[in-house]
């Protein structure tokens, strides 16, 4: 933000240049012992040119990143109602657990005798995920939601291949309301995408699906609850349709938070569903990741789960249905044993790391997946318990409906006639005629100290404002946010358009020029690269 101070700071908000503008190649924030300097074994391939990498002393480094951090909004600062993203509280207990020496200082390729506890964590997590979703198996290795989608679609492909229909069944049905990763994933898996057009009620209709069925259909990808924040009423019927047509049902589980403990996707005919541990199970978003996308699989797809597989042996008698053993990195026990009793009691764990002799479709990534997220998610699930997780869903849905109820009178709510699930969908049709659209509303919220809702998604609703408060918001915060939204609606009606176009004024920066960034991409700092002409924080 522009300022007339000499320092470039504005009170506590500190101006901070790039490390390339303050650091130099001889600076450093580490003290390392002098190399002894014997003869090397580099075979003459030593690096020649200088790297020109700046180094900062530790105090300068601390300041640089602390100052940067204060230019960020975060859950710990306030409501973060970003629809489809499930920005809920991230317990610090989980951070501590993930950093236990026995987890953090463990190498994925250590001999299995030295990693039994890690494999047990994966087995327990798998048990919780399978039991919560009512699915027989889970592949833990996908690294995020989109990667889980990829895993699920590859399992479908493998199943078709096993049926000898891989070449004939190439078409995947995807509703137009789907998140971009769905069509992108289907394409990456070698399928063609056939879009199911939207309906006014924001839902997928069986007849629209039926109309598209045929011998070349591989499956369907449906998000449930969907990206309009609605539960797909006819999901079971659609599942039956796709199954009788010889296809599979991939369910995008990004919105699982709305139904965890209330509905088991396994009861809806789902064949594969990824779970964003960084959404429903609260592993921190970290400004863009990392996440984890374990993918639960139906009995039909389980045999094709990618390696690694966790094998329990000798299997504690009667505990693991033998036909289900070793599917995915999966503990498929449905016996509901307490996660607190060691499944290893009966014997140790083994890892199967290669597909040979299995129907596994392959490998999603090196090693075994996002262990750091598994420990966090397991601690999160154990903390809630099945009663707490059910309450999570109920409070998430209650909070969203409360906001919907308070905002409906002041904004256009395309599907506001009925209840929503975990997120409330508004659009700008009532304000746009007055000159204010979704983006302006969003920027005005920045000045009010809020991260805005998700803007312009789902695409099926013009000027969408998708509001997901999550269950970790107290009523007090919901009311304050609603008051702000209503006050802003009032300003629109008062015709104060300029106020919105000028926003934000109180945020660390004014509105940023995204077009310029795309037109003349400057993607890195380069010494002496001719200046962009931008005003730069005092160095």
């Amino acid at each position, binding site marked *: 933000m522009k300022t007339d101070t000499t320092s470039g700071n504005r009170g506590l908000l500190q101006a901070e240049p790039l490390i390339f503008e303050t650091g130099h190649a001889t600076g450093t924030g580490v003290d390392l012992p002098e190399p002894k300097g014997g003869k090397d074994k580099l075979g003459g391939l030593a690096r020649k040119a200088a790297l020109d990498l700046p180094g900062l002393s530790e105090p300068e480094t601390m300041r640089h990143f602390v100052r940067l951090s204060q230019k960020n909004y975060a859950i710990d600062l306030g409501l973060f109602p970003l629809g489809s993203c499930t920005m809920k509280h991230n317990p610090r207990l989980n951070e501590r657990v993930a950093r236990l020496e026995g987890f953090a200082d463990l190498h994925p390729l250590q001999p299995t005798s030295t990693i039994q506890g890690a494999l047990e964590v994966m087995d327990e997590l798998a048990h919780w995920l399978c039991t919560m979703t009512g699915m027989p198996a889970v592949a833990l290795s996908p690294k995020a939601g989109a990667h889980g989608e990829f895993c699920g679609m590859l399992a479908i492909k493998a199943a078709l291949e096993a049926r000898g229909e891989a070449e004939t069944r190439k078409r995947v049905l995807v509703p137009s309301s789907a998140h971009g990763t769905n069509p992108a994933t289907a394409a990456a898996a070698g399928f063609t995408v056939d879009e199911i057009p939207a309906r006014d009620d924001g839902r997928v209709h069986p007849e629209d699906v039926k109309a598209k069925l045929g011998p070349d259909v591989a499956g369907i990808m449906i998000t449930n609850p969907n990206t309009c924040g609605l539960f797909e009423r006819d999901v079971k019927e659609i599942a039956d349709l796709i199954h009788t047509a010889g296809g599979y049902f991939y369910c995008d589980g990004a919105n699982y938070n709305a139904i965890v403990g209330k509905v088991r996707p396994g009861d809806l005919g789902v064949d594969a569903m990824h779970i964003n541990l960084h959404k429903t199970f609260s592993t921190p978003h*970290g400004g863009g990741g990392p996440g984890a996308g374990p993918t639960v699989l139906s009995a039909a797809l389980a045999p094709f789960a990618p390696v690694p597989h966790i094998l329990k042996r000798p299997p504690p008698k009667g505990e693991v249905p033998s036909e289900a053993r070793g599917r995915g990195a999966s503990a498929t026990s449905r016996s509901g044993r307490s996660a607190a009793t060691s499944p290893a009691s009966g014997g140790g764990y083994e890892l199967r790391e290669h597909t040979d002799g299995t129907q596994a479709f392959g490998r999603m990534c090196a090693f075994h997946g996002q262990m750091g997220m598994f420990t966090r998610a397991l601690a999160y699930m154990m903390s809630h318990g099945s009663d707490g997780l059910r309450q999570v869903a109920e409070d998430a849905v209650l909070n969203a409906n409360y906001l919907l109820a308070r905002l409906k009178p002041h904004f256009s709510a395309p599907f506001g006639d009925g209840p929503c699930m975990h997120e409330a969908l508004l659009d700008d049709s009532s304000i746009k005629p007055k000159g204010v659209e979704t983006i302006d509303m969003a920027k005005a919220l920045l000045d009010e100290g809020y991260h805005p809702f998700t803007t312009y998604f789902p695409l099926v609703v013009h000027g969408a404002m998708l509001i997901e408060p999550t269950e970790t918001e107290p009523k007090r915060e919901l009311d304050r946010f609603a008051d702000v939204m209503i006050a802003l609606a009032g300003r629109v009606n008062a015709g104060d358009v300029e106020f919105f176009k000028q926003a934000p004024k109180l945020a660390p920066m004014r509105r940023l020029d995204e077009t310029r960034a795309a037109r003349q991409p400057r993607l890195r700092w380069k010494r002496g690269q001719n200046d962009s002409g931008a005003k730069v924080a005092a160095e």
Partner: protein
Amino acid sequence: MRYLPLTDADREQMLGVIGAKSVDDLYKDVPGGALLKDLIDLPRVQGELEVHRHMQRLAEKNTPAGRTAFFLGAGAYRHHVPASVDHLIQRSEFLTAYTPYQPEIAQGTLQALYEFQSQVAMLLDMEVANASMYDGSTACAEAAMMAARVTKRKKIAFSGGVHPHYIDTARTACEALGLEIVALPAAVDDEAAVTKSLGADVAAVIVQSPNVFGTITDLTKIGEAARSAGALMVATFTECVSFGLIEPAGAYGADIVCGEGQSIGNALNFGGPYVGLFATKEKYIRQMPGRVAGETVDADGQRGFVLTLSTREQHIRREKATSNICTNSGLCQLAWTIHMTLLGEQGLKRLAHLNHEKAVALADALGKVKGVEVLTNRFFNEIAIRVPGDAQKIVDTLAEQGVIAGVAISRLNPKAGMDDILITCATEMNTDADIAAYADALKKVIA
């Protein structure tokens, strides 16, 4: 429940405002029967103390690397990460922020991304880098697919030195797209062999240096061969600390350089989360996968940063996107940037030197053990050794004696026909005593 702020009174009141009798009214769209009446049969709510105890008990069933004489690398490396790194990434403003979709209140994340992209490009000697991939193996798979897009060709050839997990990961992804994978036989020191498979249908040759056997290679000729065959040279790596000491693939003219960034800023974490580094040439950026931050100005003309070139991405391009990636490795990337900022050129070079010295000492010590043959002649911090007998058995036996000796090739690639070879690695974390203990134990086990 301690994470749930609503009181029963709140819930009552809110239902009133909504005009619903019970929460289940809000679930009325759930088809009959599917709405669960009872609690799912799993343990109930537990306090922090109980959960922590349980997790600690599981953690203590493992043998942490630091409690052994530890020489395992093969794609994940044990380095010292300064305390300030882990402290900074846990700050609420970084840890609990989302992808920076509202740049005016996300400059912290965005500027750090821009700094990361610049540091990666400098380290790898490339023109541009993206904002991170999941890890090295998925970055490598993305590179293969990108090469196919760029060249409109369908065959990808891997050298015999690429990490087997990377090849498996790329094969899984590429074959789904109908691309053909050619993997050359495992070879300690023969990256160049991959050029033999070059042809009009080859999109890229993918090589690794230092490779999985630790061998470092001059890639100049391979790059020339690829170029003249109309293919791209993709170079991958698993140990990015090496580029503080050895020539990075960018200097050999690679078109895409991708690999694992875990070594800088990130703990072993049993394999994840890690951070994939991905760099290429400017002319290819529209085909590049993943997010990228760019510089711009705000309404007052102040410099700021935004996510840009999003027309490549799934949320805009959908099935035509360059990749389906959305969430990436944000926090691991931040840790990488912070650690690299602390190191700087001087610290990185010093660190790389130390690693090499330890590895040279390790090679000398193991080479002196009767029956052991050091197979890697040019290396950074990792080497392959031939042992008399089954390498896997030897690794397991040594583990019982508190020595994590490395990994047997047979575990990574059972078909390699290298059952008597294991790869072993040394970093600044290894003491001379560790090395002596390893050589000693190995001697006894062999005898």
